[in-house]
Structures are given as structure tokens and as C-alpha cells.
């Protein structure tokens, strides 16, 4: 049995912020991080003197490739006026900022620092789609790229194995896409603020206006089954199964538990934190689950003394629709092979018993890879503090939320449980 790990000193989140996510040709990562930082500062109820920040950890996957600029730790630190405090960049592909968060937690838990800024940033939209795909494929395992696998391809292959094992079809993935698109219009920060139904109706309306043949879609799924509306990317992944190319940044302020009340009467506490590593596809005994996620979840639940039932809602890494499906099972929210049935029954909708990706998820909120992990925590912050506006989960006793962040094709996975006491 695995060892139960504890922090030597507990850690709280007392401020959180993120930039709008989208594609911004006229701005760069410093603009995004500045936007996130300003929002984070404004969210600290009793204020913060930035000279009190001891250190910073910044997640960034591949700005080296995307904008030909590396070494983002000091660049951001200098921007915020934190120099000469230490600034460290973390890289875990699409889980880069969850690793920054983790480093910040450990630095405080060890007693070395008291107040740490953690966040992430990424700028992807300066590259053409093919270049972004090439940049992301840097995080596959070496033999996968040689065999022609792309990022969507790896998740497509996982979906093929899941479908075969459990009898699900693309129909199950569509429930996830439709749900994310229903949540996103309620999130002012989201990249795609439109439901599938509205998107579909707009296309019908446009065809009518232009006097073109009007598509006959009975419902959202008919739209998603139409290869003209939803072309294949890497079967069974189609366009609407895939997250977009995004720019953006996010950050939260971590402080030692005993200092938290200096900043707010209403901090969030890090109840559990886990991280695991995963294998490439040729070394996996089973392609229908993510070993790294299961390991991270076990570690976090063990530390928190909680079970999956205790987690009331979560942000789950849905770089591709099938990733959300498999991960809600790996996190223990549903039994293996049962997740897609629960999702079809509405279990993960905003008004369901286990809301997943109330932000719109990576699919609609956007996925500036290095910023994603901490941006998920910003969503948990908003929900637990009851400031999520129109997308507020309709549960007056919301107390525990969690984030799952995945890097690469499952090589790095994290799971973090946050609690409002």
C-alpha cells in the first residue's frame, strides 16, 4: 500500500486571477500575465505588498518554440517588480503550471518561504495550426511521433480502445462537447462563448440569408455527426472534440496557513495534492486509463483523507473530449466504463450531482497550455467563494473542489483538492 503523504505546514490560496483566454495577435505573454496578476492582486481581500512575495514559480511549456523566447521566470518577475526574488520556470507540458503550483506549495510547506506567487503563461497563436501541432507533439514519447502519432491521434487511439472495451461510441463524446459549450457562454473569460445549438442555428440562419442549401440538423448531435460541420482530425477525434489554440495566463497567491487570515477571512486550503507520471503507449499494459492520473488521485485523496464522493465538483483536463471521459473514471467519480453513461444522464452538467468543467473546460475556455493548470484553480476559487456569476453551481453548501491537469499524452498528471473551511 502506498504511503500517505502530508505537508509539514498547510498552505492556503488567498488570491487568484487569470487573463481572458483567446488568440491575441496584438499582445504577448507579459500582457497576459500582467492581466492575470492585476486580477489576482484585486482579489486579495485585505491587500498585499508585493515586496512580501518571497518567490515565484511560473509554468510554461514551449514558448521557446511558439514565440522563440525562453527563460520566462525572470522575464515575468522583472515585469511585476519582484526582482531580485527568485523566479523559477517549471515544465510539465500542458501541466506546467500545476507543477509550478506544487513547487510553491512544497516551498511553503517546508518552511523555507511564506508567500509565493505561482502561475503560468503561454502564447500559441502566433504559430500556424500545423506548427502548433508540431510544437505540442514535442511532448509525445519518442516512438509515438515516429509512428505518425499527433496529440489528437494519441487520444484518438485511447478512445478506440475505450470504445472497444466498454461499447461507447462518438455519441458519448458529444455529450461532453455539448456540455462544455453550454457552460462557456456563462464564463466571460472563455475563448468560445457559444453553445453548439446557437452555433448550429447561426449556420442555418446564414445559409438561409445567402440562399444556400439549408443544412438539416435535427439537434446538436446531428450537427456533430455531420462531417462538413465537424470534420475528422484524428478518428474518432473530430474538430469539436479538440481544444483550441490559445493565449493566456493565470496566477494564484499561496501563503502559509498561519498567515492566511492576514490576507482574507475566506481563504481556500490545499487539502490534497498529487502528481504521477505515465508511460508511452507502447509501454502501457492498458490503453483505457491513465496510470499517472490514478496515482496522482490516490496521493491527493490520501493526503486529504477524502474519497471521490467528497469532491463536489472539478475541473478535469479535457484537451480532447475523450480525456474528460477517461479521467472522470480515473479520478474515481465514476467506475471504469460507467463514466459515459453517467455523463449521458447529465451527472456532470452545471446542475448535475458532479459538475465537471463549469468554466467550459479546455475545449471552450481555451488551453494556453502553460497557463491551464492554475487557471483551473482560479475556477475552483470562483466557485467556492460563490463569485462565479451565471455559472455558479447551484449548491449552497459548496465546500470542496478539485483540479486535474494532464501534461503531454499523460506523461504528467496532477490532482489537487481545494477546500473552503
Amino acid at each position, binding site marked *: 500500500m502506498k504511503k500517505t503523504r502530508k505537508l509539514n505546514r498547510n498552505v492556503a490560496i488567498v488570491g487568484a486571477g487569470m487573463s481572458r483566454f483567446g488568440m491575441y495577435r496584438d499582445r504577448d505573454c507579459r500582457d497576459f500575465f500582467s492581466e492575470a496578476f492585476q486580477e489576482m492582486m484585486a482579489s486579495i481581500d485585505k491587500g498585499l505588498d508585493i515586496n512580501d512575495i518571497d518567490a515565484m514559480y511560473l509554468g510554461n511549456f514551449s514558448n521557446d518554440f511558439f514565440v522563440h523566447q525562453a527563460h520566462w521566470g525572470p522575464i515575468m518577475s522583472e515585469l511585476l517588480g519582484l526582482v531580485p526574488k527568485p523566479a523559477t520556470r517549471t515544465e510539465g507540458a500542458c501541466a506546467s503550471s500545476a507543477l509550478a503550483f506544487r513547487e510553491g506549495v512544497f516551498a511553503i510547506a517546508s518552511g523555507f518561504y511564506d508567500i509565493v506567487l505561482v502561475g503560468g503563461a503561454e502564447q500559441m497563436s502566433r504559430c500556424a*495550426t*500545423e506548427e502548433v*501541432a*508540431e510544437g505540442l*507533439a514535442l511532448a509525445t514519447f*519518442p*516512438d*509515438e*511521433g*515516429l*509512428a*505518425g*502519432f*499527433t496529440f*489528437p*491521434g*494519441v487520444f*484518438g*487511439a*485511447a*478512445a*478506440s*480502445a475505450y470504445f*472497444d472495451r466498454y461499447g461507447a461510441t462518438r455519441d458519448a463524446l458529444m455529450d461532453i462537447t455539448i456540455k462544455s459549450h453550454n457552460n462557456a457562454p456563462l464564463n466571460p473569460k472563455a475563448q468560445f462563448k457559444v453553445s453548439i445549438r446557437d452555433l448550429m442555428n447561426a449556420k442555418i440562419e446564414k445559409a438561409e440569408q445567402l440562399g444556400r442549401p439549408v443544412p438539416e440538423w435535427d439537434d446538436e448531435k446531428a450537427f456533430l455527426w455531420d462531417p462538413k460541420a465537424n*470534420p*475528422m*482530425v*484524428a*478518428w*474518432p*477525434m473530430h474538430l469539436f472534440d479538440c481544444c483550441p489554440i490559445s493565449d493566456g495566463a493565470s496566477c494564484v497567491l499561496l501563503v502559509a496557513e498561519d498567515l492566511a487570515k492576514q490576507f482574507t477571512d475566506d481563504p481556500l486550503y490545499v487539502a490534497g495534492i498529487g502528481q504521477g507520471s505515465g508511460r*508511452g*503507449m*507502447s*509501454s*502501457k499494459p492498458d*490503453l483505457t486509463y491513465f496510470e499517472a492520473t490514478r496515482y496522482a488521485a490516490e496521493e491527493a485523496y490520501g493526503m486529504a483523507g477524502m474519497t471521490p464522493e467528497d469532491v463536489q465538483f472539478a475541473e478535469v483536463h479535457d484537451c480532447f473530449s475523450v480525456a474528460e471521459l477517461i479521467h472522470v473514471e480515473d479520478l474515481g467519480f465514476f467506475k471504469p466504463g460507467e463514466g459515459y453513461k453517467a455523463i449521458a444522464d447529465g451527472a456532470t452538467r452545471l446542475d448535475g450531482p458532479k459538475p465537471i468543467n463549469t468554466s467550459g473546460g479546455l475545449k471552450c475556455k481555451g488551453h494556453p497550455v502553460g497557463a491551464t493548470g492554475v487557471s483551473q484553480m482560479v475556477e475552483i476559487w470562483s466557485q467556492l467563494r460563490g463569485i462565479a456569476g451565471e455559472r455558479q453551481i447551484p449548491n449552497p453548501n459548496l465546500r470542496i473542489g478539485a483540479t486535474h491537469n494532464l501534461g503531454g499524452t499523460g506523461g504528467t498528471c496532477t490532482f489537487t483538492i481545494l477546500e473552503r473551511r
Partner: protein
Amino acid sequence: MAPLPFNIQSFEHYLGEDKLMGGKCNACGMVVVPPRPICADCGGIDLEWVPLTGKGELMAYTNIAVVPPAMAAEGYGRNNPYCSGVVGLEEGCHVVARIVGIDASDPESLSIGMPLTATILKSEVDGIAKVRLGFEPS
């Protein structure tokens, strides 16, 4: 003579000689394709090259229509997708490879569990020879 290093480059070198070779761990018997310098199962480093039968079955697959630059250079793209898959070999290990001899625009033309046989794919793009492992229906 010392064996070739147990890595992807050597694996491809053998493919170029029309040989399908894997790395076998002499401690536990595990075969890994392409090989690596440390046994994935037991951590052993006493390895040897062994020929593979090239017979296996399809474990997972995807038909890729949005293709990376290297595959676009070979003529693949939105109207001409290719298939990549995970193949379970007779020797007990899995390998990732291209799947050929099927219609990649028709997912129904493939099924998990279908028997496959290895084939060595050679191509030349801009004067550079490329050799890759592929599998086709048996």
C-alpha cells in the same frame, strides 16, 4: 563485436536492412520494440537483439487527417488521412506503428483485435530516405 546500442536509431538501422529486431532482456525475458537501454519490466541491462515474427494484433488506432509537416510531405492530409496504431506483438510487447493496407478514411475498415503482419515502409522526401515500421492486415 559489441551489439548496436539498444535504441530507436539502431532499430531503424535494422529496418533499413529489412530486419525487424527487438531488444530482449536476458534477466526477465521481456522483449521491447523499439528497444531501450534499460529493461522496461525489471530494470535489467543485460540485453540482446532478437528477430521478431512481425505478427500481432491491433490494440488501438486512429486515422489522422490533420497531419504533421513530415507526413504532409509524404502526401497525407485532410483528403488523404493515414492510420497509426498500437500493435500487440506475438512476443508479448506492444509497439506503435503505421497501419497500412486499409482505408484510413473509413474507420469501419479497421477493428480492434484484427490480425496484422509487419511491413517495412520506405519513402524518400526531398532526397532523404526514411524507413518506418508499418503493419498491414494479415
